[in-house]
């Protein structure tokens, strides 16, 4: 463990920058060792709670295994994957999941950036109050907020239809949860309301990292507000924005609570997590459900890879290590 531990960070750090090895000083070695002493326990816990279940899920996905028929367990190879990938429900769920991810993240980035600007510029006396107010939705448990939004829009007990019946398309008889479009609208709206504060916090951190001298210099050069935003602020915040988008995209892709509470997948609103839940927990089909979970996991890895490789998100530089 110790030898491995010492080698791992050295290669990881040096590989991309310098191909040739440079002997490390005693101090650097000691620091690396200390780093592993500090991170080691967390590393072991991570392996126990994430790597082990992932391997177990992959193993289970190769079996036909129903929890209430343990004696019928049989090895079926990749058959479960074949069933899942050839089923239109899987692709439809993937489509809905991607739709929710793209829509919510896009809206949240715009809204979150606006809120971050407000928080950044707010007068000192108001700043604390404003930040607290903006953070409230994020502090609410998702299931609770899902129920609140559900009852707000519900046709028998909700008030939205009465308050907004002057809006074209909304009437007393509109059942929001009876069609795909309106159901997804409420699901996305609830998700956006709940997690925009998270993105705005990350963006606020990014905003405060933009050196004020640059902005001041641009002002002296006669740049307008829009120009400063586009040429100075945004380029300097790129890393923060990408990290915020990556975190939220991963989160949004695993959406479960809102859909589970509001429609439970009715009217073609099933998302991948719900499909995995329904297969392994409701139907107790551990094999088939594990296959869906593994595919969901691969999708998440795919999104990470896309961001880190294609958009060059450097997570380390965001933490000030680069």
């Amino acid at each position, binding site marked *: 463990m110790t030898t491995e531990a010492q080698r791992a960070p050295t290669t990881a750090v040096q590989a991309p920058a310098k191909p040739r090895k440079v002997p490390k000083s005693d101090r650097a070695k000691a620091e690396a060792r200390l780093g592993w002493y500090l991170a080691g326990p967390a590393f072991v816990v991570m392996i126990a709670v994430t790597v082990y279940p992932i391997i177990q899920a992959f193993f289970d996905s190769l079996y*036909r295994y129903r*929890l*209430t*028929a*343990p*004696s019928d367990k049989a090895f079926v190879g990749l058959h479960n994957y074949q*069933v*899942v990938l050839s*089923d239109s*429900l*899987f692709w439809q769920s993937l489509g809905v999941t991607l739709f929710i991810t793209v829509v919510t993240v896009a809206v949240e980035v715009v809204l979150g950036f606006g809120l971050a600007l407000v928080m950044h510029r707010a007068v000192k006396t108001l700043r604390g109050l404003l930040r607290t107010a903006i953070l409230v939705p994020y502090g609410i448990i998702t299931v609770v907020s899902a129920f609140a939004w559900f009852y707000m829009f*519900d*046709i*028998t*007990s909700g008030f939205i239809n009465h308050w907004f019946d002057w809006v074209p398309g909304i009437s007393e*008889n*509109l*059942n929001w*949860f*009876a069609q795909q479009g309106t159901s997804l609208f409420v699901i996305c709206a609830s998700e956006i309301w709940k997690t925009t504060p998270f993105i705005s916090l990350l963006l606020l951190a990014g905003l405060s990292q933009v050196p004020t001298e640059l902005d001041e210099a641009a002002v002296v050069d006669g740049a307008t507000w829009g120009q400063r935003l586009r040429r100075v602020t945004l380029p300097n915040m790129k890393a923060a924005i990408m990290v915020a988008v990556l975190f939220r995209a991963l989160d949004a892709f695993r959406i479960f609570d809102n859909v589970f509470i509001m*429609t*439970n*997948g*009715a*009217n073609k609103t099933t998302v991948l997590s719900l*499909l995995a839940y*329904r*297969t392994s*927990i*409701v*139907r*107790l089909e551990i094999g*088939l459900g594990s296959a*869906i979970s593994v595919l969901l996991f691969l999708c998440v890895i795919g999104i990470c890879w896309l961001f880190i490789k294609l958009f060059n998100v450097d997570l380390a530089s965001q933490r000030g290590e680069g």
Partner: protein
Amino acid sequence: MVRRRTKLSALLTALVVVAPLGACASGSGSGEPTLMWYTNPDNGGQAEIANRCTQQANGAYRLEVSVLPRDAASQREQLARRLAAKDSSIDLMSLDPPFIPELSEPGFLAPIPADVATKVSQNIVKGALAGATWKGKLVAVPFWANTQLLWYRKSVAQAAGLDPATSPVTWQQLMDAVKKTDKFLAVQGAKAESLTVWINALVESAGGHILENPEAPAEQLKLGLDTPAGRAAANIIGTIGRENLGGPALPTADENASLTIFQGDRGSFMVNWPFVWSAMNASVQAGSLSKSVLDDVGWALYPQVNAGEQTRPPYGGINLGVGAFSHHTDLAFQAAECIVSPANQSYYFETNGNPPANTLAYDDPAVTKAFPMANVIEQSLEQAAPRPQTPYYNEVSSGLQETWHPPSSVNPDTTPQTSTVFITDVLHGNALL
């Protein structure tokens, strides 16, 4: 200093890890074994019955309740997973009848001793006995039995020229009546178990069965939907959906939403469980419902599909299972016998609105006072048809909900066939659900 802190944190960690384990250990040390009864949420009736039985047991056992999740499907999930892990803390459990075969087949339920079986099946309504039986054997103890009645607003029925209390009505008559009076029919069209309840009652009332051979293994199950009975059921659900007879809330209406519609300005007829009677009385007492609405409510047997053919109303309720991995199965059966005594069943009906499975309990005058429709409920239970009893019930029910929802999409020419193909594919492991 550092050393001491490490030790302290190690001690704390050990405490955090070990303390909950200690809490798990059963038995209070006072000598009497504690039996854990996993109950579905109610108005506290099962907890009170548990207290009464503990007192009657005179120290032989102490019965405690632990409440399961709100809906039947989540209750099944939790019990099935715990039993699959051989959880010995489950001594007794309140089971929704459709899920009994699934738990009985892999041996999760302790077999009922012959003498207990004879005792607990005496004077039990037919529907409840059928719901507690799997492969010809009683596998659960019938506790309370539920059934749906037709509830109607007397004023609306009169305006439509119907009198359900004296002569049975058909679904067609109800549909014509709401069209004529411009009211809403309160039925459960939400994509949930209540939809399966409705479909099953319609198919059974039309003389068919959702499953022809419910006891067969998954690959050999044969569906009876693509039949005249299945098409008749699809015709009723589809018409109500397409012609908007259930109102705009139909695709999301569960039992509670149905009650709200029924109590509203456009309420007319409703099929629902007897809890609505206690709920309406409670609303009147709380002042949220006008007494005139309650006085306008009538009740009758579930509507017929074909005029003149006996209706097969839905059957529900709760039966008691004894966990196969319990350390005290003998005591658990003793407790079960105590729980289902006619006196406890009438108490439960009177206070919680859940009808007894034992016919003797209906003789209690307090019952007829609280539920003037008790005799109709008893008759309905004798005619009631259980939902398909198969270990694959969840697949069948979810498959139906997937293909018969929303109600407006149900077409008698295509839906029975597409649902047959879909459910068969799911049962064969070739489709996701």
